[in-house]
């Protein structure tokens, strides 16, 4: 693994893997939904789409076309903390991939047409429909976030955007956001695959080295202030009627940010409790009490906090209240009882195979390298990833569980079918 920093501040990390002639390119900007003005929820997402068109292509997504014609696959994603563009290409097309990203960062948005923005706005609204609004339980994560984090906190807003925010953003908003955040000193580029580090850095220098740094950009980052003053957690319960077939309860907590102090232990605790059919939660709710048809445990991580959710879907004819009570009781019991050593060992091994599965794929690896560099300025932390789980002693998890699953800080969200008594 090789690391560089260009004179304009862009950080670069390269990991050669020459098994197949393929290279993954992952360019991330520390520019996500948390950096949007509060009333423009969806601006970062709209900007991700808008920067994928180009002045000569009208509303066409020329970046994806360039990449795909060359045998590649391109994608963009907007999260709370970052926006990233990824591509995997036959390795002889590395230059094309870098050239396309160079165009994205220096093509002046002011040349783009208003009609192109209108088309992208429609696409972003349809994406929201597809992923959130037109899908049973699709709004659950948004609802959890808005309850777990105080109103106005950047993590309380969805990165996909809200319809009113997406509709109200104009070209000036998009351009201002773009100019503030899409700069080399705010970016990390990761390359993984069939590359020689010396040649690759020469190409990176060629395409990105002459771009001026962002200078002292005014980069509003309300989040850094807000996190310092994140109010004490307080329990909240919410029941939402929706177009869903069965009641579903989410029992949710805040946890440490991505790979931060305590994150691995929290992740292991969540896995121990609720991942797999032999997990304690599955045993209690599906097999013994028969109130749920399935139980899952999720941990969605942002840079400075994670959202943990234990999710149970009611068995047919089981009412929401019964499910909700059973889920809370089961988690509370497990916090007191502790997790058996064998269950923890199982979760440790699963965490390891999951990690290897991500690293097997070049895109997954490039994304991990970029994120570790962006958040910690140290991609080598990935080398210790396997040990970070195996070093945790089962006894230590008792304390983790008590801290994580405090009743005072939990959010209980249930989604129930219209017509069901609640």
């Amino acid at each position: 693994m090789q690391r560089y920093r260009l004179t304009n501040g862009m950080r670069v990390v390269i990991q050669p893997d020459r098994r197949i002639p393929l290279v993954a390119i992952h360019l991330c900007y520390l520019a996500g939904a948390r950096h949007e003005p509060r009333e423009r929820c969806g601006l970062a997402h709209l900007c991700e789409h808008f920067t994928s068109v180009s002045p000569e292509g009208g509303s066409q997504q020329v970046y994806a076309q360039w990449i795909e014609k060359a045998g590649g696959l391109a994608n963009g994603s907007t999260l709370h903390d970052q926006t990233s563009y990824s591509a995997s290409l036959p390795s002889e097309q590395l230059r094309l991939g870098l050239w396309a990203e160079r165009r994205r960062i220096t093509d002046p948005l002011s040349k783009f047409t208003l009609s192109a923005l209108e088309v992208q706005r429609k696409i972003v609204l349809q994406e929201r429909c597809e992923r959130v609004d037109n899908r049973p339980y699709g709004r659950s994560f948004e609802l959890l976030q808005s309850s777990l984090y105080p109103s106005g906190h950047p993590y309380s807003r969805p990165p996909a955007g809200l319809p009113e925010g997406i509709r109200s953003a104009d070209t000036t908003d998009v351009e201002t956001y773009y100019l503030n955040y899409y700069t080399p000193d705010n970016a990390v580029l990761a390359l993984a695959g069939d590359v020689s580090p010396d040649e690759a850095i020469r190409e990176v220098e060629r395409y990105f080295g002459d771009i001026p740094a962002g200078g002292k950009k005014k980069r509003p980052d309300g989040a850094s202030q807000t996190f310092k003053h994140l109010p004490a957690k307080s329990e909240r319960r919410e029941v939402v009627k929706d177009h869903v077939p069965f009641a579903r309860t989410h029992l949710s907590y805040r946890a440490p940010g991505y790979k931060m102090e305590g994150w691995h232990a929290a992740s292991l605790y969540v896995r121990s409790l609720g991942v797999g059919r032999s997990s304690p939660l599955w045993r209690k709710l599906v097999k013994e009490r028969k109130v749920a048809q399935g139980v899952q445990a999720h941990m969605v991580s942002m840079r400075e906090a994670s959202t943990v959710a234990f999710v149970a879907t009611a068995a047919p004819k089981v009412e929401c209240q019964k499910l909700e009570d059973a889920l809370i009781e089961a988690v509370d019991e497990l916090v007191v009882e502790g997790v058996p050593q064998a269950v923890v060992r199982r979760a440790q091994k699963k965490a390891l195979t999951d990690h290897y599965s991500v690293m097997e794929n070049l895109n997954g690896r490039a994304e991990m390298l970029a994120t570790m560099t962006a958040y910690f300025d140290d991609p080598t932390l990935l080398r210790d990833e396997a040990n970070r789980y195996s070093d945790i002693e089962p006894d230590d998890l008792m304390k983790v569980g008590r801290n994580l699953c405090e009743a005072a800080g939990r959010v209980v969200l249930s989604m129930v079918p219209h017509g069901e008594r609640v």
Partner: protein
Amino acid sequence: MSVLARQPFSLVEPPPPARPSPFRPPPCRRFQLPNGLRVVLVEHPATPLLHLHCAVLAGAQYDPPEHEGFASLLMPLLREGTAGRSAERISEETEDTGADLITWADWDAGSLVLELLAEDVGFGVELIFDLLLSPVFPPAAVESLRHKQLAKFRQRQWKAAEIANDRFAHAVYDGTVYGRPLNGSESGLSDIDRDDLVDFHRTFFGFRNMTLIGVGNFQATTLMRHLESALPSTPQGRRAQPPVIAPPALPGKRVYLVNSPHASQTELRVGHASVARNHPEFARLQVLSRILDRRLNANLRERRGYCYHVRSRFAARGGPGPFITAAGVANDSVGAAVREIECEVERLQQEPIPEEEISGARNHLSGDFLRSFQSSHGVVAGLRQAAVNDLPDNHFESYLEEIHAVGPKPLTALARQYLHADGHVVVAVGPAREIHKQIAGAGQVTEVDSRSGDSGVT
């Protein structure tokens, strides 16, 4: 770092490619054991993982006629207990090793998949064949899983995309196996009993009807040694003969509307029955569908903003799978989207396809092929498709040769022969109040309910 000497470049013209690195798919080692089991192994030392995948020719196309959803019920029941292991022990032993155990069925085959650390290869081989050969189908588990499948069936009725897929299949393949819901219906699942499962298992789960695929960080000789010591050498079972599936003749365009009054978007499916995976033109049709796919994205998504995704493809199945275009479309643009899809199909049939588009499609498919080799998942998927469709051993190589050989005139001829806009089945799942009038222009609209397993046409 110090500033390196920068080479100049043009911001207008994309840079040319460097000299391509040669790529040969990793060698597949193929064996057939004396008991009839076919084995395909690829050593793929990217990470310490091993992917074991056993495909049994016992997919939904073999479901007993009165029991739709049979294969989808049987496969997960394999993990509910064997002669030597309880369901609980199976879960615990699997999860103790950090492994993932997955079962599923498609039309062609049932699959049992174990992803684990390569150091646990012996355990993996022993477990996978214990589940495949010695399931006991405990009555309580059969009943419990049936209820679970019924619950899943109910959940599907709330997912617009699933309703659209089921309704499309029902309309295109009416009266054939492919017209039935893959995962079953209330009527199909309701009276399957343990004896049915035991009979089906006895018929289809012999070694001669199975292919074991192993991809990952292992040595083929080690894995073969485990196989030989874990399995009997006596031949078992026979290879299943797939049923002939003959979709009804195209009776002209048909439009079906499923009313989903609260939907914020309409799920649209457009297409018809087409060719099987082992059809000689299948690879070249992939080039055609890639060109159509790119054009639909350029038109429906990027020019007009009607949708976030639109995808067009020839599905790979043992029998004549569908040619289908799928999109989630803004409710006010459904009629226009159907017209544009038809226009793009007709344009492929009437106008020569520029060489640049063909070469882009070829490159993209070659790139997909390359990407499939970066993880054991991708390699397994390709090998499974070959195994269940009896593709030749050199199919990886011949696929690439065929997509690179096809030119503009044959592609236009393929479009004329294999695309039939006048025989499209159109299915729209969305708010009838908003979309009925829009799609009336595409043909006579029939409003149907969401359950393709039921006959209710309103």
